[in-house]
């Protein structure tokens, strides 16, 4: 059998898989070893949205031993198959899609000969170049598509890789984030990327406001997703410091619980940022703002409906329905384009043989 005939068979089987929704959509993820990561949840959410619509979405991991997400996300993602690169059985066809997070940019050279659809997934734009060979571009490795989470990130990506097509799929904020019906507790939820900052904020607060030493800081790490929302909703206020953040899941989760946020505006302003929290560009002002808010809260100040409305509006677009709709429409269009391309190539090949 000559090459052309072999290619015809290859194309025909690819079309057949595409039409039967058997083409695999691989989502490459790293192992968080049981630690909760919003970025990983977002990937699983996209995969699940596709799986529930009958697509063959799979989670692709490096090692055979993978801790998974069950310990912190529960069993709702159990239906997603997990395949490992190292078991040697993973075959990526031309009709498949592989979604590669920015941390894995270094594997792009290995993927360059694979003819599947390759999509970069950028959730942390600050890490976009971290593992990419200096001076190289995604398109050098045949990757011209990208999914990101915010307009600001999209703009940034297009600034450096204008040849890319960039799609927006923001994460959604789960419905477990709801205001509590119980009285709020004198707790402050704290989320800082940098642990040094975390300690600094707590120390500064207790020193500057010794009369508030009875207020408890809740460290929002090492909790399951449900535990996290349960703790968050009972807090009076939350603190967010993450200069490298792109999307800003934590403040939105907080706002959805009606817990106001005292936060430092990250280097890239989140799309949803408005007068929906106590925001500052100056990290040194955080403790002052926090202390003023806590003292006012102890004195009985409650959030006005106007503030609650602003927080609600900020979260509104980030719901599961919109997320799933967007995920489906983007992947469906990519698969359909690929189907068309393969059909055209097949047609062309058949004409050549005749």
């Amino acid at each position: 059998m000559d090459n052309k005939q072999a290619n015809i068979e290859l194309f025909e089987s690819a079309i057949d898989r595409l039409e039967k929704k058997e083409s695999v959509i691989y989502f490459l993820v790293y192992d968080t070893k049981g630690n909760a990561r919003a970025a990983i949840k977002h990937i699983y959410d996209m995969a699940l949205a596709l799986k529930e619509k009958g697509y063959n979405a799979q989670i692709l991991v490096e090692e055979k031993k993978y801790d998974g997400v069950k310990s912190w996300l529960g069993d709702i993602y159990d239906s997603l198959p997990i395949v490992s690169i190292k078991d040697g059985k993973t075959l990526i066809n031309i009709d498949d899609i592989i979604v590669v997070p920015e941390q894995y940019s270094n594997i792009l050279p290995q993927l360059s000969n694979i003819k599947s659809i390759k999509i970069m997934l950028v959730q942390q734009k600050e890490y976009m170049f971290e593992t990419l060979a200096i001076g190289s571009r995604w398109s050098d490795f045949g990757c011209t598509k990208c999914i990101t989470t915010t307009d600001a990130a999209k703009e940034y990506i297009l600034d450096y890789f204008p040849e890319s097509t960039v799609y927006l799929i923001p994460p959604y904020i789960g419905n477990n984030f709801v205001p509590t019906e119980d009285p709020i507790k004198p707790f402050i939820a704290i989320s800082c990327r940098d642990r040094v900052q975390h300690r600094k904020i707590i120390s500064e607060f207790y020193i500057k406001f010794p009369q508030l030493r009875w207020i408890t800081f809740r460290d929002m790490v090492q909790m399951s997703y449900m535990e996290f929302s349960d703790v968050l909703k009972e807090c009076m206020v939350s603190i967010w410091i993450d200069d490298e953040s792109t999307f800003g899941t934590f403040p939105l989760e907080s706002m959805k619980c009606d817990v106001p946020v005292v936060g430092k505006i990250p280097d890239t302003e989140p799309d949803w940022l408005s007068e929906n929290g106590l925001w500052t560009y100056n990290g040194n002002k955080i403790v002052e703002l926090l202390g003023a808010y806590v003292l006012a809260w102890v004195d009985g100040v409650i959030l006005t409906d106007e503030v609650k409305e602003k927080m609600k509006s900020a979260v509104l677009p980030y719901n599961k329905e919109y997320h799933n709709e967007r995920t489906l429409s983007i992947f469906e269009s990519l698969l359909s384009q690929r189907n068309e391309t393969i059909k055209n190539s097949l047609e062309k090949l058949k004409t050549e043989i005749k």
Partner: protein
Amino acid sequence: MKKITIILPIHKLEDDDQMMLKNAVYSINDFHNDVKLMIVCPESLNTKIESVKLSNKLETKILYNKTHKTDFASQINMGIKDCDTEWFSILEIDDEYKPIWLSSMNEYMNRFTDVNIFLPIVKDVNVEGKFLNFANESVWAYGFSKKQGYLDNEILLEFQNYQTSGGLFKTEVVKENGLFKDNIKLTFTYEFLLRLTLNGAIIMTVPRSGYQHVQFRENSLFWQYKHDEKEVLSEDEVKFWVDTAKKEYFFKNKRDIKYVKE
């Protein structure tokens, strides 16, 4: 029907006291739908008290004390005995409730139905109104008490500084477990809380600053303990009354106690 009686004991009623009384009563004016006021005062003050214009909105009862025992604890006890509401609170003449008091108490009362006593966070100020410190707040500190927000007997044995004024007490629970012991100087509120927790009363602090307390106002009871030559307490006596509270709380009723200078 009102569900809370606010007991306000008065010992004397000079011009300054009248101003303070008006101010204290004014602080509960907006609670008139839920609370009624009970002023307990010596009978000798009847003309004076009736001449003070208090509140048109508040249901007010004046209870005249016909005994010679007109100290703070005795007058509170009179008020409690006469109380016909489910809950009562204590208001000192130089103090005031903050506007958040009633709504925050209601919020907690509705949610924590097993709690018998809710203490507010008390904002201690000096006579100029300058903030000095909070009281009752420490139970919310992480790892302080067995259950965050709750005051238990073990904590009380170690720390004495809890304020009963401004607190909300379930009348029945207090009547069952005994009233203030008026023969205990300085630490009668401490003994009272120790006794209540020993007998299983559940005490919780509402983490809102619902009550403002003036510390060491001239001629106030605690000021006298510190500055009045006749009343001043020595270190030994302070220790004696703390130790006494720790012994007496096992008994529902007061027993004979006398401090004898060594």
